[in-house]
């Protein structure tokens, strides 16, 4: 089943990888791309701008109940969890932080997995805690594709290793391979 949705989770050490992915995805990329990155909770501006520098695709932080568009990159806003709803909508939440994180990668991945099922490709990058491990399991349970960045390549391998310990990972790839994989979806 063709993937229409890509969700990428990352924390400490993932910024460079994210910008590299964004610089390589072509201008006419037709998937919806969701970024769930650990970030400072009170810093509302600047992150989108920093990510946009090398990106060929437009990046925004979704407003609650905004429609999900193709070919757009969405960054989970600071201090909100980012969910996906029937009707192709975003919903945000201020529920308690999970794994000390809001946005939580687990919660976004779980919500995306539930809604998009086998049309979802989930990618987990470098990070210093276990956020995303449970989320990856959910992606698997609902038929999506799971990819982790090769832990040996990660600046901090905790996050990707935790995911691999919790669930079967479809592909363990170096960054260049992840980029190719996403380009060929």
């Amino acid at each position: 089943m063709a993937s229409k949705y890509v969700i990428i989770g990352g924390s400490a050490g993932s910024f460079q990888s994210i910008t590299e992915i964004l610089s390589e995805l072509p201008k006419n990329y037709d998937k919806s791309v969701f970024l769930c990155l650990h970030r400072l909770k009170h810093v509302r501006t600047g992150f989108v701008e920093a990510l946009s520098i090398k990106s060929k695709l437009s990046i925004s932080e979704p407003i609650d109940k905004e429609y999900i568009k193709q070919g757009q990159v969405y960054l989970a806003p600071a201090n909100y969890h980012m969910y996906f709803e029937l009707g192709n909508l975003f919903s945000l939440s201020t529920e308690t932080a999970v794994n000390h994180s809001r946005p939580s990668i687990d919660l976004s991945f779980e919500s995306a997995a539930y809604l998009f099922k086998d049309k979802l490709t989930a990618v987990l990058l470098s990070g210093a805690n276990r956020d995303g491990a449970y989320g990856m399991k959910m992606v698997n349970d609902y038929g999506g594709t799971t990819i982790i960045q090769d832990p040996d390549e990660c600046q901090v391998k905790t996050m990707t290793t935790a995911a691999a310990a919790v669930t079967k990972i479809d592909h363990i790839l170096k960054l260049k391979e992840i980029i190719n994989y996403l380009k060929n979806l």
Partner: protein
Amino acid sequence: MTIVKKIRISEYRELIKQVNELYNIDLSSHTSTSLKRRVEEFMVLSTTFTIGNLITKIERSHDYFEDFLYNLTIPTTEMFRDGEAWLSLKNNVLSKIAKQEQIKIWIPEASSGEELYSLLIVLREMDILDKCKIVVTAITDKNIKEMKTGSLVTRKLAVSGANYQRYKGNKNLEDYYEQNKQKSILNSELLKNVEFKKHYIYKKIEPFDYFDLVIFRNRMLYYNKDLQVKVLDNIYNSMNKGGYLFIGVQESLTYWQYNDRMKKIIKSENIFRKQK
């Protein structure tokens, strides 16, 4: 994370149907992702392992149902969340209406006290708290009971303190409460002009009063678009002309808005003014 077995959609539908029939509260227009999480968390908390069991308990006890509803309300987290937004509210709204003889403020569907306590501190520091009448409405008695006591979760106070600095408050946040291990208590003097009411905002209501300012941040997140429209209509009808509405930074009036009933007064913050 959840340890309750994944609940099927048909079971959620049954739950929603029963709640509506028993207590005339329609949860079907709430956003499903967060609703499901709240239901699952409540089931774990109350050691109820099946939806059937949950429905039975809800049917048997109104108190249990109140607990259930209470757990559906999402705690809004820190005080002075988005400190710059509070500062903007002070500079662009409160400074303007400060000259009025009486200022009426409504906080609808409050789940925990943080927005209220932040407001009270802002008003106190502006020296206008005494001429404010503040109404806080909530959907369960339990929410009200907690807020009436001025109780704060101590664990969250560090973040609140940092937010308060960003708001550029006059003092230290600690000056306003008495700190204990688990819960801290806001100075009760601050709560003297606050009226608490149990109130269900999801149905069309006759206004019970008219307000100069409505603070409604990060509540609409849990409504689908149709419910947002209903609730915003209720709020709009309860505002004085020229009154202000303060919503969450990632929320929007776009779906509800027509004829520019509300105008955004400042580019960088979600503060709106009723036009007619």
